[in-house]
């Protein structure tokens, strides 16, 4: 699979039976549909559905439009329902792309107090990638 940002081949990382794709060039992470839920489920946290509901972002998004690494369709710019971080989501529902650091921002700003618990749970899988830079 190719990184939608750098066009490099992405590495597959597997931990505790969950596989993610990431790009060594930009440290962006691709989540296949349902993988975040799977991770949280494995950590024993019932998935807070309100935390990761998305709305289509304002069209003047500064970021370039990117192709979905799975199906090649141009991805939509989306924001968490109550947040401002702009993410890329496949229009066919194949998955979501997070630029480096975006996972942390999204959880922090949209899950409120529950964010820390979710962060803690995801750290098991993503470790350093969630650390504050």
């Amino acid at each position: 699979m190719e990184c939608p940002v750098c066009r490099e081949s992405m590495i597959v990382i597997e931990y505790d039976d969950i596989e993610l794709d990431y790009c060594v060039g930009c440290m962006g992470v691709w989540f296949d549909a349902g993988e975040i839920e799977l991770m949280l489920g494995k950590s024993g946290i019932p998935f807070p559905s309100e935390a990761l509901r998305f709305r289509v972002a304002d069209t003047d998004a500064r970021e370039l439009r990117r192709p979905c690494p799975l199906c090649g369709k141009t991805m939509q710019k989306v924001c968490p329902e109550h947040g401002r971080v702009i993410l890329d989501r496949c229009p066919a529902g194949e998955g979501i792309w997070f630029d480096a650091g975006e996972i942390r921002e999204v959880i922090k700003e949209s899950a409120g107090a529950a964010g820390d618990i979710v962060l803690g749970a995801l750290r098991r899988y993503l470790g350093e990638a969630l650390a504050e830079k």
Partner: protein
Amino acid sequence: MWEIARSNKRKSVIFVFLMALLLVLMGGVFGEHFAQSAETGLLVAFVIWVILSIIAYFQGRNVFLAVSGAHKIRKEDHPRLFNIVEEMTIASLLPAIPEIYIIDDPAPNAFAVGRKPDSAAVAVTSGLLNTLNRDELQGVIAHEIGHIINRDTLFMSMLGVMLGSIVILSEIARRSLFFGGGRRRTRTSSSGGGQIQVILMIAGLVLMLLAPILARLIYLAASRKREYLADASAAIFTRLPEGLASALEKISVSPIRLRKINQVTAPMYTINPLQNMKLAEDSLFSTHPSTLNRVRILRSMAGGSGYDAYDAAFRAVTGQTRAIIPPSALKTAHATVPSRSRRSDPKSDPGTDQTKQAPSAMGMAGAVLTAAVLMDAAAEPVTPAAKVRETTDAIWKSRGYRFIPCPCGAALKVPPDYRRTDIVCLRCGRKHPAASAS
């Protein structure tokens, strides 16, 4: 082991002849009707058939593997699957180990291709590897090798080509009927041959509609019987009819459908991937016999694994009086074959009653001894998750990915076209040289 192949050959001639007759008839009538000469039609039919046959004969195997999205694997990618195929190669006396392919598809299924037993290939889906245990997988592989040994792989692809030619011809005819068919009628409308023309035209129309259906029926009738015979072969190779029976049961209840599939490729699979209600009775239009019947027959074999046990069970289950196994095969050494005991079956006592029967005491007919299970331990992943992991890794490896275990507990899987010299672990930030991947 080749008894069935020999008897199949005779029957194949009949099927091929029927198909060829249909092809000639179509070519002739269409040629007469649309181009005013039967010869032209025959020529068109012949050329289409020859071209498709040449492609199928020399490239059919690779084309089929390619459209199914199959990737070849090596032994280290999935040792257990490899071992099972090698075991069945020994049991079936196949002259060479078939190449092994994995298809990344969650629907459990398998097929075999190859025109010769010494250059065949077996493909299984990742779903099959995820759902079946070792004995069941062995049953499915034995069934596929049965197809190779019985020469079904060659025959069905050649028959499939004829079906394809007929479908293409009828398609050409249908189009020319709309675009060019009218010209002719105006020219001959008032002549004395008008009535004959009308009759010919109706005949042509009927043939155009019926030929593909008829061809499909011939094709399906040929493929259905071969499924039963491959099941019988599988029982002989494994000496364990229950392995395949339980595999078929598991496959048939799986709700997942194959992604890349069509009418012509469907009969190649262990279980018909297009069938809607899988447990339905045999019908004229099914490529495969009803799975329920296949399972029932295998389970009614009553301790035997030979052709006679399968034949008796077939008659008992289907209520048919005609034998399914060719009489010539019932006279061979593989007619009567005892089953081996199942690994985990506490009632079984491997090595006593079966191995005690000295072969010399059994006379010439019962020449084959049972394969006693020597060891109870079958090594395979216990949890479903671990099994899925094993399969997924086999798929990565078949695509040329190399693995780096990171001390933090994660595994990094590096694609073959990765260009950087090192890899940073997403979890712990450790740097690994890309060359350390294996």
